[in-house]
């Protein structure tokens, strides 16, 4: 039942959204084709822009994994993470996510590349990527832009939310795909 609802939402979300966007655009007399291609041009730039970050992270994680260092680390942390159902392979993702957006995306890509997109570690990392944010970066940029130095309860609350998001991603992945 739970799985059915979740899978249903996933299945209909994109087609319904595309139909709504195109239909509403047509209704509002937007030149849908021209506007679409104008926006699509950006897609190329986005994909090219992330290459340096992807290379940096994939190579670094590759080095850490190929040498066996990752196995050492996950061996150390796994008693803790296996308790909530997180496979050791996902530990680097949970550590990286609040620190660096490009880094976290690199780890997702690396897990997909190594274990396949339909593996549990790759799915879990993808769900983590979608449901949490680069907390430190956002706080630094947003507060920095207006010169606020004393951030009060913003950081502890944001980190609590990250922790909740990471645990939720683990639990939901195990429930839906486990």
């Amino acid at each position: 039942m739970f799985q059915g609802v979740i899978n249903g939402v996933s299945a209909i979300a994109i087609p319904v959204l595309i139909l709504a966007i195109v239909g509403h655009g047509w209704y509002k007399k937007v030149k849908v084709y021209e506007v679409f291609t104008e926006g699509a041009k950006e897609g190329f730039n986005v994909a090219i822009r992330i290459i340096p970050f992807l290379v940096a992270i994939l190579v670094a994680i590759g080095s850490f994994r190929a040498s066996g260092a990752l196995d050492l680390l996950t061996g150390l942390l796994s008693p803790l993470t296996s308790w909530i159902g997180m496979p050791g392979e996902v530990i680097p993702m949970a550590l990286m996510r609040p620190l660096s957006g490009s880094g976290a995306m690199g780890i997702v890509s690396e897990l997909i590349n190594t274990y396949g997109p339909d593996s549990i570690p790759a799915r879990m990392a993808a769900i983590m990527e979608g449901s949490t944010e680069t907390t430190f970066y956002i706080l630094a940029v947003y507060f920095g832009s207006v010169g606020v130095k004393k951030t009060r309860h913003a950081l502890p609350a944001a980190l609590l939310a990250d922790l909740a998001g990471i645990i939720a991603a683990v639990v939901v992945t195990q429930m839906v795909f486990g």
Partner: protein
Amino acid sequence: MINTIWIVLMAGGILVAGFQCLGLDYSSAQGLVMTPSFVPLTELTKGLFDSAKAAVNLAMGLIGIMALWLGLMKIAEESGLVNLFARAVRPLLVRLFPEVPPDHPAMGAMVMNIAANMLGLGNAATPLGLKAMQELQKLNKVKDTATNAMATFMALNTSSVTFIPATVIGIRAAANASNPAEIIGPVILATGVSTTVAIIAIKTLQKLPKYRMPAVAQEGEEV
């Protein structure tokens, strides 16, 4: 921070591989046995080059999906659908930010920022978010200290209210996942949990004496 992590991953891997080249075997019957070989290091080198190649292949696969998504989002912007969406989340935000007047420009910018985040439009969300912070700063009486409204806005942003995680779906599609969009349901669920925790945490923590606004603000108000 990211620099430290990167060097630990990179150099840590090389050092561990170098150590393995010594071929130490503790479990051997003759005590400590050493069988040196360069295999771990050559394997590592091969792994590094493969990773670099994989990164570019991935980005190439992403171009098409990103183009599709950003094209659709451009239509949604032009047709006013993003605005419509923003109007729908507005009543909720008005309740979350009691300190901000509902018709203040800060409210409008925050509404648009959150709407953009929900649709996975990270690039569009950031300028709107920065604009919202500037407007919130105008309502701030102690300029170097975050207001409750700012902290709440940050909590919403960092807990990532996402409906369509477009980039991750793109990466999964580029890697030939059997069903790239299957993560949407789980993401909405997990993001709901983190956002709920964020709001509860922010509203609870702001009452603690440790995080109270400096008293200067209240005095300034009375004068």
